[in-house]
């Protein structure tokens, strides 16, 4: 008799399981959509090539120019930070100015920063380097840019040294943005 009792129990369990499987079909159903939004940052350099120019007066001023950029950023709500930095990844070609080995002491490639909120621009004039990233902008916790991005700019100043040979010189500057 116990065998038949077992059979009956198993049959009932199958019916229950079958009913459970079919129960997921109904006239309506719900789904929970989930999305995890993390810290993120990106930037675009809007001035593809920045020309540094000097005034017409002989050695009356340094070479200057401006590089514009657009950034997007989202930092962590609590304790998050963000930065924009730059580094001269390829120095000027030989015979002219040089970031790493200037022909005269005191020759520099310097820049100042301007950035719209939520960023804060670097303070004062910064000296660009080929070895160390230097500050352009910083961001605090829960910083959120506009959907289309916010803007900033870097104003360059390159020493006008008579020691430079005439010619056109090019350097490459790498901008990096990060967020935590």
């Amino acid at each position, binding site marked *: 008799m116990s065998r*038949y009792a077992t059979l009956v129990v198993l049959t009932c369990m199958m019916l229950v399981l079958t009913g459970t499987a079919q129960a*997921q*079909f*109904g*006239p*309506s*159903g*719900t*789904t*929970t*959509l*989930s*999305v*995890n*939004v*993390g*810290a*993120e*940052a*990106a930037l675009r350099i809007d001035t593809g090539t920045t020309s540094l120019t000097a005034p017409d007066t002989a050695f009356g001023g340094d070479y200057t120019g401006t590089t514009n950029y657009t950034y*997007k*950023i*989202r*930092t*962590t*709500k609590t304790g*998050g930070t963000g930065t924009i930095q730059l580094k001269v990844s390829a120095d000027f070609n030989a015979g002219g100015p040089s970031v790493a080995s200037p022909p005269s002491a005191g020759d520099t490639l310097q820049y100042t920063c301007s950035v719209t909120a939520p960023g804060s621009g670097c303070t004062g004039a910064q000296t660009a380097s080929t070895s160390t990233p230097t500050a352009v902008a910083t961001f605090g916790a*829960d910083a*959120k*840019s*506009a*959907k289309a*991005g916010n803007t900033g700019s870097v104003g360059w100043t390159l020493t006008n040294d008579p020691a430079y040979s005439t010619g056109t010189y090019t350097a490459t500057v790498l901008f990096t943005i990060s967020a935590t």
Partner: protein
Amino acid sequence: MQSYAHMTATTLVGSLRQPWLALLAMAATPVCTSLASTATATQSLNALIYPIAKLSVPATVALSAGATRFSSFTGSAAVSYRLRTTPSGGGNITLQVTSDFTPAGGPSAGSGALTYTCAGATIGTSCSGTQTASTTVQTPVLTLPASACTGGGGACSSQDPNSVTLSFTVPDDPGYATGSYSARLTFVISAT
């Protein structure tokens, strides 16, 4: 012949040790008896088949960030359904955001942040183009034709259940605060 059948059944009952088998044999006796005579009868069977439709959706759908920064979050879900429509009927599947993304500070379906496309319906016509999910109205997923039915082949579909795939998109707006957000969608199927 009838008495022989009764005797046989009685003998069997008497020889059975299991009480339930004895009851079964006794119950079968009238059947055996009826086999002894021949008769014909007709009976009309009327089946009233109603239109019906049911669906099943995954409990959760995770939206993932794109490969490039600030590209949209995307995810897909297969909606399974079974249906039967009348020759003059049809049906549809719709969805509505019944609970917007929470907590606050992230995407908002109420602001049009959740869009979707529909594809691959094994019966019916998928929604056209990109739909914007709403918290206030039902938006289309699928339109079901007349005289449609799930499974069994022939006039019905060979697939059982039928399915349609939805692809969801939420823009990765820098204005969203970091965190995890979830919203609830309710799908409804109807058939006539």
